[in-house]
């Protein structure tokens, strides 16, 4: 066994070009398969993230917001922008037939901070009526019961210092603060009460504060970026009103009713906003699947061809082994072992490299498609890894199987006479 393993090893190292080609092809097979599976999963998860992000069946925004470029995408990604409408619209909307829950949000500002690598979206919201932010909280709470600072919590100063007051402050997943930490927003200290899960949207770089805290920040801050919204806040304006219709109710009539009866606003169905995205995501999933399949099949075919060529070139060697006393079974196992080692090495390398690059690849795909992406959980990723590895090893083996079978049944005498 040891000597046969030695023969296999020497054969692999003795034909470096062929061996490297096989390893690379198997790496392509496994890497492309893993990437394809995870990307399709990411895209499909992105769709469900978008649906969950909305939570609402209908959204009402000021007319002016619709002129914003890429409104649909940006809104779906969690960025409402500095647009305002009267707050009493929420009350009017709640009286419309079919309306179940109503919750308003207020855009404060996009601020530069040390809490995040990119601009922080500061949003006001009503924790009592909210049904969009709360579902994403994974640590702490919305703070409606007033949270206090934890022992050992840190202070992070964005623009000033002072004593912190309680209120609802919910931080996105990329905000460098956890529940109990005191952070300073535009010079006003606040205590973080909750932390959201990663959404793959602008939620991740947002901080949601209750309206009282929003008012305190605006009144106490010297930050010029807040001056634009100070009056709006005082007037009770809101940026967006989110609506969940009564169970079983069709959102369409609610939407139509709002558009008819409420002035200078526009109601849009979340399903309508998402539909276009659904189509493009389905298209993206299909394209990714087709490309993965094409790459995999091309690599598989190449493995088959290289395996056949490799044994054809070595016909005389194998014929020599036959006349030296190697049985068909032994010859078969030598050739198959070579294929197994090369396909295992290549498949492992491909899945390892692609596994390491996947976060970047998923992120780039999300950016290119303008959709939220979230990486699969550890369990799903590990399953994907082993599935890609197993399928690619099997593919490489299958390519070698035909060659091993052919060479083991070869008539050695004519092969030995070849020049």
């Amino acid at each position, binding site marked *: 066994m040891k000597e046969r393993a030695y023969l296999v090893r020497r054969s692999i190292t003795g034909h470096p070009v062929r061996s490297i080609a096989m390893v690379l092809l198997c790496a392509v097979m496994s890497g492309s398969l893993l990437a394809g599976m995870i990307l399709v999963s990411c895209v499909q998860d992105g769709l469900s993230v978008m649906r969950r992000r909305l939570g609402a069946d209908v959204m009402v925004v000021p007319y002016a917001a619709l002129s914003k470029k890429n409104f649909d995408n940006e809104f779906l990604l969690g960025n409402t922008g500095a647009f305002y409408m009267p707050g009493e619209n929420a009350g009017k909307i709640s009286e419309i037939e079919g309306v179940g829950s109503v919750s308003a949000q207020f855009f404060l500002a996009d601020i530069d901070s040390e809490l995040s690598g990119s601009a922080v979206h500061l949003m006001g919201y009503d924790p009592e009526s909210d049904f969009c932010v709360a579902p994403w909280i994974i640590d702490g709470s919305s703070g409606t019961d007033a949270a206090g600072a934890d022992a050992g919590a840190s202070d992070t100063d964005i623009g000033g210092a002072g004593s912190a007051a309680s209120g609802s402050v919910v931080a996105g997943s990329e905000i460098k603060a956890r529940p109990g930490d005191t952070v300073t927003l535009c010079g006003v200290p606040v205590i973080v009460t909750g932390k959201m899960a990663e959404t793959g949207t602008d939620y991740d770089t947002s901080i949601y504060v209750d309206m009282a805290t929003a008012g305190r920040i605006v009144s106490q801050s010297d930050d010029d970026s807040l001056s634009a919204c100070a009056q709006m806040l005082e007037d009770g304006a809101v940026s967006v009103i989110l609506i969940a219709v009564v169970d079983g109710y069709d959102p369409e009539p609610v939407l139509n009713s709002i558009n008819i009866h409420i002035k200078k606003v526009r109601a849009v169905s979340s399903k309508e906003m998402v539909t276009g995205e659904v189509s493009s995501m389905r298209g993206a999933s299909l394209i990714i699947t087709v490309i993965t399949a094409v790459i995999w099949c091309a690599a598989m075919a190449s493995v088959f061809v290289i395996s056949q060529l490799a044994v054809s070139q070595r016909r005389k060697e194998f014929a020599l082994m036959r006349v030296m006393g190697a*049985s068909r079974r032994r010859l078969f196992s030598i050739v198959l072992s070579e294929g197994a080692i090369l396909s295992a090495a290549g498949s492992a390398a491909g899945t390892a490299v692609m596994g390491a690059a996947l976060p970047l690849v998923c992120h780039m795909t999300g950016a290119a498609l303008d959709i939220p992406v979230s990486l699969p959980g550890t369990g799903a990723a590990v399953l994907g890894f082993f599935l890609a590895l197993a399928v690619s090893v099997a593919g490489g083996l299958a390519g070698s199987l035909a060659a091993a079978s052919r060479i083991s049944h070869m008539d050695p005498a004519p092969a030995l006479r070849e020049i």
Partner: protein
Amino acid sequence: MEVRAEQITKDYFRKHGDGNVFTAVDACDFLLPAGLLTVVRGKSGSGKSTLLNMLSGNLTPTAGHVFYDDADLYSMKDDELSRFRNNNIGYIPQGRSAVWSLTVLENVMLPLMLYGARDEKRAVELLERLNISDLKDEKISRLSGGELRRLSIARALIKDPEVIFADEPTGDLDDVNTGIVFEELRGIARSGAAVLVVTHEEDAAAYADRMLNMEGGVISAEDGTTASQ
């Protein structure tokens, strides 16, 4: 060990040409005695290599039997026959036959390595006997034709077989190396092995203890005896 063939014949079926059957070896009895260098001489296509391969267990005859003492070669299954060949038969193929990814020493040990064994001492002894021990760690590509042929002889002897077959062992060698190879094969026969050489060389008769001719698949002896005597 006595090698004895009874009425072995080899037919090939062809799609084109006169009739469908080409007879490479006409039915014949053959005896390969131990201790003698037997040479079968004939032109290309005479059937001599086909005869050699049938006698050495590498080509199943269309009809007939090959016996090694009482063992009927072609009644064995492939695993058993392969093992039998490995243990009892040394084979020297024609041309440049070697495993190119192995060194000279490893090529000599190939019959051992196929069954999980290794005997570097024995391999080096054989290389010394054939005057190529200084090449033991070389790659095969660096060997000349004569050196490669001597390697083949060393490989055929690694398990000290009782029967040696050599297919055109001097086909691409000069006169000097031809002489060296035939002398070596005669020496092996003198040591008690049964040695069969097939060749087209006219000079082979000078080394042979027993000379046979083959033409058109039919074998005949020069001295009036038969191939089975």
